[in-house]
């Protein structure tokens, strides 16, 4: 088993190295899709908790598979396997696919490592590898949108890394339940999870990244943030009602806000990204509840792990399906393939979504007022929002003209992801209390949001109601405008700043280094005018 743990991490890294080498590239590229196999085998084989201590590595690396880690490893490796196979078909004639695969494999190693690492420094190391290498996936296309997405992604990712590092140090150096430690960790991992304001890179990245990259971003990597919360927050150990309730309120905002803004999106990637924000709101809700009421944590944890597997697999399958439809059109089979994970996300009866949602609902049932009353409403709102978003996605997809048959290299990996969604339902069946699930009340509760969404969508189509448009990244746009306005206050300075920062086109400033630098320089100019000594090279680009 130890060998399998090492192989899970070594194989993607080794293949990345071999793909980077021109001499071994051809062979390595053909092997690359199979890189997550050892991890998958490990997740399937590890019936009981495993550990592997490498005391010489970093500050004493501990790898292993515990109960929640095993589930994360299982769906993470499955998604990477499907996405890796899909990438081979998707990039069949892209001259830059070698570069893509190098970053893909590095990100994969980081993501699998985060599932396996049990110590703080080790987790942080793999998490950082994943975050930084994923820049190559987001920015791969190299057009304006991809560059903007990459820049926003990177700025937020670096900020997240620093918050996580500070949080881990505070937790280790002071106490795991120190309010600063909790705040830093919640926000740091919140960059991946998509907490409000930190979520702005999600819609840009999901829309700009190539489909296989978007599938792993939205399916697997976003869950690494959740795993960070589960691993390092003092859940079940300390009661932090203030932070907890704040996080729960944030989760409620994400559930409602994600659905509403998502409905105003055009690109499938952006619709799915806002759907992710809404879904991740459930995790904020659950983790917030765990901080508020430690006694409730064990059932909540179990429910969240199931929810993570459900959302990861469904979202990955949706992205791969969106890719197939984008290339080969909305044939009947393709639409059916999209509908299954869409129904799962909406929580329709007999899907993993229904089981996940029911599990979360019953785990959260013991919360004090006002949450006890608000929760059912919130979960219904979440289900309805998801159903509406999925309906919108399907309506859009339906209009894509059919172009030939999808090659095996695309549909087979998609089928694998769909099998994962279906398999999860079957796999959970023994554990779910079917008697509760099969009660007419529960079935009705799961069914009506789907029908309501269907009815609303059909009505909107009939009446030709167009959704209002909100640009992808919502609040990012005014932030960018503000930064651009600061730059524009000094037109010659704007041009110079653009030259310094290397952005060839000065007008669409994005949050990043250039405007920050210009803002700093403006402060220096004002300072100099007031008689402060300012170093000449800050004033003169």
């Amino acid at each position, binding site marked *: 088993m130890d060998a399998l743990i090492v192989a899970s991490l070594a194989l993607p890294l080794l293949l990345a190295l071999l793909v980077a080498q021109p001499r071994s590239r051809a062979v390595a590229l053909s092997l690359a899709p199979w890189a997550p196999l050892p991890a998958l085998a490990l997740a399937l084989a590890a019936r009981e908790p495993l550990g592997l201590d490498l005391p*010489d*590595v970093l500050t004493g690396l501990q790898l292993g598979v515990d109960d929640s880690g095993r589930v994360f490893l299982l769906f993470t490796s499955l998604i990477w396997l499907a996405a890796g196979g899909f990438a081979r078909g998707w990039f069949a004639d892209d001259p830059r696919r070698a570069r893509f695969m190098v970053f893909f494999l590095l990100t994969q190693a980081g993501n699998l490592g985060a599932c396996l690492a049990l110590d703080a420094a080790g987790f942080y190391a793999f998490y*950082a590898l994943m975050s930084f290498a994923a820049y190559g996936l987001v920015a791969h296309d190299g057009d304006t949108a991809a560059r903007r997405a990459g820049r926003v992604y990177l700025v937020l990712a670096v900020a997240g890394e620093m918050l996580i590092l500070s949080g881990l140090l*505070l937790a280790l150096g002071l106490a795991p339940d120190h309010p600063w430690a909790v705040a830093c960790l919640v926000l740091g991992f919140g960059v991946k999870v998509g907490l409000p304001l930190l979520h702005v890179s999600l819609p840009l990245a999901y829309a700009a990244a190539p489909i296989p990259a978007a599938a792993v971003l939205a399916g697997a990597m976003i869950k690494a943030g959740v795993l960070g919360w589960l691993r390092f927050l003092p859940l079940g150990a300390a009661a932090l009602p203030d932070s907890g309730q704040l996080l729960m309120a944030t989760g409620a905002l994400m559930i409602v806000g994600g659905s509403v803004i998502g409905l105003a999106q055009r690109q499938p990637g952006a619709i799915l990204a806002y759907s992710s924000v809404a879904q991740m709101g459930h995790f904020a809700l659950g983790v917030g509840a765990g901080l508020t009421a430690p006694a409730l944590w064990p059932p909540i944890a179990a429910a969240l792990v199931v929810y993570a597997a459900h959302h990861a697999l469904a979202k990955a399958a949706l992205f791969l399906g969106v890719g197939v439809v984008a290339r080969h059109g909305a044939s009947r089979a393709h639409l059916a393939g999209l509908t299954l994970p869409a129904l799962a996300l909406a929580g329709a009866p007999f899907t993993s979504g229904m089981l996940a949602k029911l599990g979360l609902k019953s785990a959260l049932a013991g919360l004090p007022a006002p949450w006890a009353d608000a929760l059912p409403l919130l979960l219904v709102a979440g289900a309805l929002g998801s159903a509406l978003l999925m309906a919108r996605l399907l309506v859009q997809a339906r209009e894509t003209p059919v172009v030939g048959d999808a090659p095996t290299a695309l549909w087979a990996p998609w089928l694998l992801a769909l099998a994962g969604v279906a398999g999860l339902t079957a796999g959970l069946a023994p554990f779910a209390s079917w008697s509760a699930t099969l009660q007419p009340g529960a079935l009705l509760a799961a069914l009506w949001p789907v029908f309501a969404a269907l009815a609303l969508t059909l009505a909107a189509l009939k009446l030709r109601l167009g959704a209002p448009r909100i640009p992808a990244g919502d609040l990012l746009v005014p932030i960018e405008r503000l930064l651009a306005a600061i730059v524009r206050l000094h037109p010659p300075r704007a041009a110079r700043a653009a030259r310094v920062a290397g952005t060839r086109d000065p007008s669409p400033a994005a949050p990043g280094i250039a405007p920050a630098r210009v803002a700093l320089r403006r402060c220096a100019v004002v300072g100099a005018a007031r008689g402060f000594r300012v170093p000449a090279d800050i004033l003169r680009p």
Partner: protein
Amino acid sequence: MIADTWLPVAVVLSSLVPGLFIFFLAESRVRLRTTLNLAGAFVKLALIGVMLWGVLREHAYVFTHTVLPGVELVFKADALAMLFVTLSAALWLFTTVYAIGYLEGAPNRSRFFGFFSLCVTATVGVAMAGNLFTFFVFYELLTLATYPLVVHRGTEKALRAGHIYLAYTLGGGALLLISTVWLYGLAGQVDFAPGGTLSALPPAMAGQLQIIFLLLIAGVGVKAALVPLHGWLPLAMVAPAPVSALLHAVAVVKAGAFGIVRIVYEVYGIEFAQSLALLLPLAIVASITIIWGSLRALFQDDLKKRLAYSTVSQVSYIVLGVALFGPVGTIGGIVHLVHQGIMKITLFFCAGNYAETLGIHKVSEMDGVGRRMPWTTLAFTIGAFGMIGVPPLAGFISKWYLGLGALEAGMPWVLAVLAVSSLLNAAYFLPILHRAWFRAPPATWPDEHIPARRGWETVPLLLLPPLATAAVSLLAGLFAASAFSPLDWATLIADREYLQWTP
């Protein structure tokens, strides 16, 4: 045993003797000069290996020579000295190899390598100095030996930088001399000893000791480039790349930082310095330097200048670690002495490669350079990520221990300094990496004079040193917890510096 006395001297002589020979060699004796250089470097490393083994088993290597009554020249190989000596000797070897490739066919090579060896001799002397007087002597020798290297090219710009360099460092040397004499007057000979020796002085002298501390730190702070004494460093980057590499990684800047380590731990003693309330001001100065250096680096388009400001910032991590009261902070500061050296030397080697191979001196000229020089850019990437503090590279280990040390010392605000500094590091390094790997290369490079040949993107002598140091900075971080890692050695030092520590 006679070897115990003469080993430290032999280590000093192993670069001094070849250096003196090289001065008198004709320019054309390339092979002999190379042999002498490399022989010196390898002999030094071998001697150091022997001493490392001894120091680990608490064996004492001390050489004493009385200059005047009460003024002794002392070389001593303790754990702290060995850390710095090993670093300098190893990086000297890499830099010598690199310099041989870099200066191939250039004029005045005998002069260059002569002073180069002198510079390392001085560094080793600084490292092994057993008392404040010996430290001062070699510290000044270092100034004089590096000046000819800074002005080596003889251009007007180089000469101006050299003048400023001399003005700063001699000023610092004067402060160091004054405070050394003052301290000798108060306490007699000031030997370096774990835990310091000054705590035995009567409490009435506390005020004087505080002033002397200020003077001492200001004196060595010039070389350590503490803000506002850092002005010379960015100018000195006009020197040839191997000199900059050595200056930034081991020789000058590190000698200053090492001086601060010695003064705090082995002259005053960390516990005594804490009781005199000297550590908090030092931590604040270091923090300001860290942030200021990073801020200034953001604005530099000249690659070496950006790296120079980055050095200003990074070297103060060492000072910050020294100022954190508690063994964990000590480990963080001391281990960064090594980590910063190997990472920064990698970055300067790479900058030299870009300049020598393609004529690239500016960040804005680096578009697509990763395709033309992938291996150099890989080494640069490792160095840059290490500086940001991304695991599993060496810089992460430093940052991890500094952060934990700050909490141990009751200074949680230091975490914010570290985080902001890391963000700024990312802000000035990541755009370079984006350019190098993701942008399209230009049709022609600014001044390509080493063509790619037989799979080598540049001359092997230029390519191999940065790859080796990049690998070391990866291994030093990845296997930080193993025996004989820099971290292990720094832990050993911290164990010996705290006398009454109870956490």
